[in-house]
Structures are given as C-alpha cells and as structure tokens.
C-alpha cells in the first residue's frame, strides 16, 4: 500500500478522510485544512486528531485553567510553572522538587491492573523528564460502592497494578486516598502522583534547539498498543482494507522503566541532553511536535527508523502509538555517541530518528517520502479552545436545602457509641492497610513518614536532613454540594495535612476529575472548582504548578461527583523534627485547635448513619487554615508537640481513634463546654487539628496559640487502653481496632 505523502495530499484534495472517526469535529478538520493550505495527509491527520483531543489540548478546560496562572500568588519558590511536564519548586539548599498528579481513570476501568500500572509509569516519566530523580509516588483512588461486585474486580486489580509497577520501579508509595461512593461505579478514579528531586542546575525542559542536534528515541520498541487510547475513541486504522481494531490497552513493563530512569539520570549527570520529553498520551505525535514547537528551529524525523515491536504498523499508527516506557532526547552530535553508550550500558534501545533543523517546520518522512510537513506549534498548541456553555445545575438548590441538620442524632450514649463504631468501620473510614501493605514504603531508605500518616515525608539530603512532605485530598461529596467550596476544602485539607506533619506548605498540583464538559451543569461545576481553587491558592500563597484534567467521567448520563484532587507539597528543614500522628506517651495532653461548629453537610456521619448527602459543606476559612498551619509548623520546629492529626472526614473521633490505634495508647476525652458530645465527636468543621502536648510544653504551647489568636481547647489526655468520652461511653482499643481493621480484608481479602 502506498503512503499518503504531502505531495499526494496536495494533488488529491477531495479524498475523503476519517476525521470524524478520529474524534475531530467538522470545523476542526476544516481548520486543519486551512492551516496546511491543503488536506492533511493520513499521518498529519493522525497527529492533529490526537493532539487536538480533549486529553491533550485541554480544549474545554483551558479557559478555566488560565486562572491558576493569572491569580497565582507571587512565590519565590516557583522555578518552572504550568506548561511544562511538571512544575518545579525551590525547596532550599540548592534543591528543587517537581511533582504532579495525573489520571488514568478510563484505562483502569477497562483493565484495572494494566491501567493503573501504566498510570504510575506515565507520571514517573513526566517527573523524570524534568531532570529529577523520582523519589516517591502516591495514589488517590475512588471506587464504586465497596460491596458492589464490580468493585471486587476493579479495586484489587488497580491496587495490584499500582504495587506491581511502583514496587518494581523502586519508588516508595507514601500515601494516597481510597474513597468508595456509588457515583464512581463504572467510573473509578485512578490518579497517580509522583515527586522528584534535583539540584537547581539540573532542571531540564522539553525543547528542541540547535540545528544539527540529534533527536534520539530511547526505551521500549513501539507497538500497536494504546493507539487511540488518548482520544478515547475507536481507532480505525487507515488501511484501505477497512478499519481494523487495535487494542487500546497498554501493557506496562516496569523493569524497562527502571532502566529508563537509571539511564536517563546518568545521561543528565553527564549533561548530555539539550532537551527531553517523555512519551505519554499521543506518543511520538506529542513528543515531536512539543519538542519542536518549544525549540528554536524545526525538526526532521525519519519515521521508518523507529524500532518497532510489530513490523506491520503504519506510519499513522506509529505516530499515535502509546507504547509505554519511551523517552525522546535532543542531543548534540558530539554527545550522541556517549549518549548511546550509556543507553547500551543499561540495555536500553536508543535510535537517532532525526535532527533539529534551522527551519521552522516539523517534517516527517517514511522511507524517503515526506508524510508530515507542519508548523509544530499548530499541532501542539493551536488546538481548538472552547467556551463551553455553563449552567448552575437545576437540582442544586434542592440538594443544598436538604440540610443534614434535620437528620436524627443519636438519642443516648449507647447510640452514640454504636455510631462511633459504625463510623470507624465504614469502608471510607476503615483502615486501609489491606491496600497499603501491598506497596513498598521503604525502598530508597528515605521514607520518614508514609501511610497512614497525614502526609508522606521523604528525606532529600542525608547530610542536612532537608525533606519534603506531600498530601493529596479531595472530597467529592463536599464538591457536589458546592464545587467552589469543595475545591477549596480539598486544598485546605491537603495543606493542613502537610502542616500537621511539620512541613511548610509550598505549592500545589491538582487533578480535576469531572463528568462530560458537554453537559453545562458539569461545566459549571468545573468552572466553579477552578475558580475556588485558584482563589484559595492565592489566599494561601501556594501556587498551582501543574496538574491534569480528566473529563467524561460518567456512566451514561450520570456524572461522577465533581472530584478535584489536590496535592500539596511542603518543605521541612530537618526531618528529625517531623510530627507523627501517633499518640505515643501516656499523660500527654490532647488539645483541639480551631472552632467546632454544627457542620454535618456531606459529612461521613451523614453518609454512614443516614446514607444522606445534602446541605452545605463545612465553611471555608482560609485565613484560619493559614494560622493553624503556622502554629503546627512552629510547634513542630520548637518541639512543643509530640503528635498531631488533622481533623477531616469523620471528625474528631475518627482522628483520635487513628492516633490512638497507631500509638497503642488510649485517650480520655472531655466534651468541651458549649458543645454536644455528638457535635464534638462527629462535626467536620474545617481548620482543625488535634495535638498531643507533653506536660512540660503546655504553658509555652498555650501562650503561642493565645498570642496568635488561635482557639485552642484542652479536650483530654493520652491514657490507658480505651477511648473514654467522659459521661458518655468507653470503647476498648481492642474493639475499636477490630472494627477499624477488619472491613477491607472482609471485603477484598
């Protein structure tokens, strides 16, 4: 079969092309013809279609994401901002950290193991491409109802895939989330975060410059996997014999990725690359067009030199393939030999597939014939931008009016006790060790804190004990009730978690998981969440450095809860000063920081006890969050507290239970004046944390809080082997532990 060359395309303007099958709209196809001044070749059409897909072009979300840049607080920490593979922040002592969260939702539903595994693989390559050594991963997950049969299929596969890939890669898994809600039935969310560290001078960017420099593709051979995966559409091949389906499922090879990491780091160490880009969604189409458009010149690529796993692939398929574990580097001719040598050392296949030119076009040939001739920027950055219609959902008023305040509260101490047990054993609040024990948290030997701590913490420098802390959060129930507040609460919680472990929050990444952008109600939720997050970042002084958008998360007409997942990175000068969550010493005093109000909208209590979602989420007070964080960080630095745990879903009793179980010590709690025991235990008011203060520090700690104006209430003492709420009930730790720990093994074990 002859290839569709640019010459042929110019001569045959009327040849029908499968633009619709590739997911392009008629006006988008016309726009491509305008840009080119002729019809696109098959290869060009392939490139434009994947690069202009929602996933790659952010066509529906772009107008809203802009706020993250426009409203971003001035921050000296930001070294590289939105637009690159991942943002980079200065963490001091000459170090920089880069981190980002991405989604792999749809692939993980189709093939849970491989979908989740390749999700880890993809985000790790993004971090690597910035010049950093990846040092840890996290995995915020959402599944359908815990007892639904399909969750039994999806969850174990996803968890095994994340573990199988991450463990084999040698990256500690230091945290994440597992949330069950029937809104994710048929549409689980598999988000993956990776963090890497480097020296400032090692930052690399995805750009091709310097005419004559070589374009080197290295890593796995290119196969037929994942073609069209990125556009989530049927992937017709261009064969005249009619469409043949290629599998959209990509299979990961973590061993290959481990070699890719080591090889790439060695190449960085010898300063051999001018620019570098990972191959993720849209494969070579993305890598070549992005590298070329960011650089100074053009690029020429001989596509037939790409090493293939399947010799029958067409040039279009090679351009669209999403085969995993590949990278693309720009290397000067002088350094090329050394680059190839290092690849050989690591058994990594590396091939010079083209070079940077002094022109301005991206030209791709196939056995000597030109099949692509484009201005790369038109592929990479000039995709369509939509101002999709927005409409506040018509059901929202009714939902917000359905307040949780009218739900029956426990009538007596026995009921209160029973509800505590129900809460801590409910799938969302139960211990997650059945999952997290499948992840290696020790590898690399720098894990200072990991699950189930408030944040994961990694030592960056063994000499100085500089470290970073990370937490991810997102509460779809809150966001459903109010997406603006929900996004802010997600940020506030992650921010608070980082501070609770003693680190100063610095910067943000986010993964915005929403339904179909073609539904104005969903688009409104999305717009509100973006606005909320951007405003909150401005107030908290933590810029968004990068992230990901995942749309079309819905089953039929039913969209998932809007689920903005927010990751916060913090820095700690000396990891020895970290604050763990466990209550470790009898006699230490328990203080509740912040204000507790009757706030039950979207709460875990309302879900577990009443299967209810309605009303308004807890009030957001970002100034309070900021103050609380300052107090937590200062207290940690000055050794005033021995344990801290932030309060979030499930309220105080959930937090105290977790800290008691972790430390193996009980607690005696006293209900503060002015609060009912019920509100004290279950309220989800934001901006709160519970801390354990050694008696010797009590005065100093109280003085500090008083001077800064943070409400602080003494609520109890670490004591014995029960949790006793004075005047109400006593629960033996053993009984709590049993309730808390048996749920997941029973469901999935």
């Amino acid at each position: 079969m002859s290839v569709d060359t640019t010459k042929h395309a110019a001569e045959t303007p009327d040849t029908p092309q499968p633009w619709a099958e590739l997911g392009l709209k008629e006006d988008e196809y016309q726009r491509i013809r305008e840009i080119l001044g002729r019809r696109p070749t098959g290869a060009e059409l392939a490139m434009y279609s994947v690069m202009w897909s929602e996933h790659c072009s952010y066509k529906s979300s772009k107008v809203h994401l802009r706020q993250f840049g426009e409203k971003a607080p001035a921050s000296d920490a930001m070294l590289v901002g939105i637009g690159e593979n991942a943002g980079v922040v200065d963490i001091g002592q000459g170090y920089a950290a880069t981190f980002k969260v991405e989604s792999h939702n749809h692939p993980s539903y189709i093939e849970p193991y491989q979908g989740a595994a390749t999700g880890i693989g993809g985000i790790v390559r993004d971090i690597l491409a910035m010049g950093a050594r990846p040092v840890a991963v996290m995995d915020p997950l959402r599944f359908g109802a815990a007892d639904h049969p399909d969750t039994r299929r999806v969850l174990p596969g996803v968890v095994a895939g994340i573990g199988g890939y991450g463990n084999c890669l040698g990256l500690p898994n230091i945290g994440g989330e597992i949330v069950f809600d029937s809104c994710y039935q048929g549409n689980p969310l598999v988000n993956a975060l990776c963090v890497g560290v480097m020296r400032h001078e090692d930052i690399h960017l995805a750009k091709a410059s310097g005419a004559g420099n070589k374009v080197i593709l290295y890593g796995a051979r290119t196969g037929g996997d994942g073609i069209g995966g990125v556009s989530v559409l049927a992937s017709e091949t261009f064969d005249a014999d009619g469409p043949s389906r290629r599998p959209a499922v990509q299979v990961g090879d973590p061993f290959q990725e481990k070699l890719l990491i080591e090889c790439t780091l060695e190449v960085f160490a010898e300063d051999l690359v001018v620019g570098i880009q990972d191959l993720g969604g849209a494969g070579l189409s993305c890598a070549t067009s992005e590298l070329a458009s960011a650089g100074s010149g053009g690029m020429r690529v001989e596509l037939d030199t790409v090493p293939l796993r399947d010799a029958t692939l067409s040039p279009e398929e090679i351009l669209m393939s999403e085969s995993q574990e590949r990278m693309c580097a720009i290397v000067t001719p002088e350094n090329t030999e050394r680059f190839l040598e290092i690849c050989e050392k690591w058994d990594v296949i590396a091939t010079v597939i083209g070079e940077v030119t002094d022109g301005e076009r991206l030209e791709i040939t196939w056995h000597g014939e030109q099949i692509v001739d484009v201005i790369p920027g038109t592929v990479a950055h000039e995709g369509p931008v939509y101002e999709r219609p927005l409409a506040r959902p018509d059901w929202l008023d009714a939902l917000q009016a359905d307040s949780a305040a009218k739900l029956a509260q426990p009538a007596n101490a026995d009921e209160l006790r029973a509800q505590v047990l129900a809460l801590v054993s409910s799938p969302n609040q139960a211990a997650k060790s059945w999952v997290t024990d499948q992840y290696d948290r020790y590898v690399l030997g720098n894990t200072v804190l990991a699950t189930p701590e408030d944040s994961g913490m990694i030592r960056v420098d063994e000499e100085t004990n500089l470290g970073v802390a990370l937490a991810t959060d997102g509460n779809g129930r809150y966001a459903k009730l109010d997406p603006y507040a929900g996004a802010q609460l997600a940020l506030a919680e992650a921010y608070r978690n980082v501070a609770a472990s003693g680190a100063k929050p610095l910067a943000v990444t986010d993964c915005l998981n929403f339904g179909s952008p073609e539904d104005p109600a969903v688009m409104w939720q999305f717009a509100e969440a973006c606005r909320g997050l951007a405003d909150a970042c401005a107030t908290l002084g933590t810029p968004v450095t990068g992230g990901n958008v995942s749309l079309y998360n819905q089953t039929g007409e039913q969209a998932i809860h809007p689920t903005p997942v927010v990751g916060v990175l913090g820095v700690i000068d000396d990891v020895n000063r970290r604050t763990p969550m466990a209550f470790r010493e009898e006699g230490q005093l328990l203080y509740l920081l912040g204000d507790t109000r009757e706030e039950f909208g979207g709460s875990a209590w309302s879900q577990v006890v009443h299967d209810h979602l309605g009303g308004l989420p807890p009030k957001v007070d970002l100034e309070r969050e900021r103050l609380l964080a300052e107090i937590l960080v200062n207290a940690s630095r000055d050794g005033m507290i021995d344990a801290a745990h932030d309060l979030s879903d499930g309220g105080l009793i959930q937090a105290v239970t977790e800290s008691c179980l972790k430390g193996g010590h009980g607690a005696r709690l006293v209900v503060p004046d002015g609060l009912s025991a019920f509100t004290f235990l279950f309220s989800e008011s934001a901006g709160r944390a519970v801390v354990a203060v050694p008696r010797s520090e009590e005065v100093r700690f109280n003085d500090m809080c008083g001077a800064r104006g943070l409400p602080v209430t003494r609520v109890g003492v670490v004591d014995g082997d029960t949790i006793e709420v004075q005047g109400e009930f006593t629960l033996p730790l053993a009984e709590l532990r049993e309730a808390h720990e048996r749920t997941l093994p029973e469901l999935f074990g």
Partner: protein
Amino acid sequence: MARVVVDVMLKPEILDPQGQAVQRALPRLGFEGIADVRQGKRFELEVEGPVDDAALARIRELAESFLANTVIEDFTVRVEESAAGATAPTGAAR
C-alpha cells in the same frame, strides 16, 4: 478423572515483557536461533465426571470469564489425552 488444559497467552499484539526478558537472556546463556519467546499461563483442571461437550462449553465459559483476561489474552481449551506421556508435565523430561 479427566484433565482439561486451558492455555492462556497474551494476544500477539500485546507487549509480553516476560517473554522478552527470557529471549534477551538467551544469547547470554549461549542459545542462538530462537526468534521469539512468548510466556503464558497453563491451567490444568481435573474434572470429575465425563468431559462431554456440555462440560467443555462450561469450561470455555470459565476460561473466558475468569482464567483469561480477554481484553489482552487469548486462550484455548483442550482435553488432555491421559496416555500421551509426552504432553503430561508430571515428570521432568530428560
């Protein structure tokens, strides 16, 4: 008791890192002349009662829904002839 064997292999177009790892190791072990290696799974089911068409149909169903992941794998089902020592992997071939 009859034995039914279900062989499950990755579809040809799906990456098989395991088979590739074996293949890459061959030259180091002094083996030449093996162009490709694919690694899959073999299930041996000991079936009570007669293995008639109905039983085989049920086992096919089992293979399709459970033993194989048909998103990425193909499978075959066959009754193993109990006599043929060559195919019964019960003793190491020497």
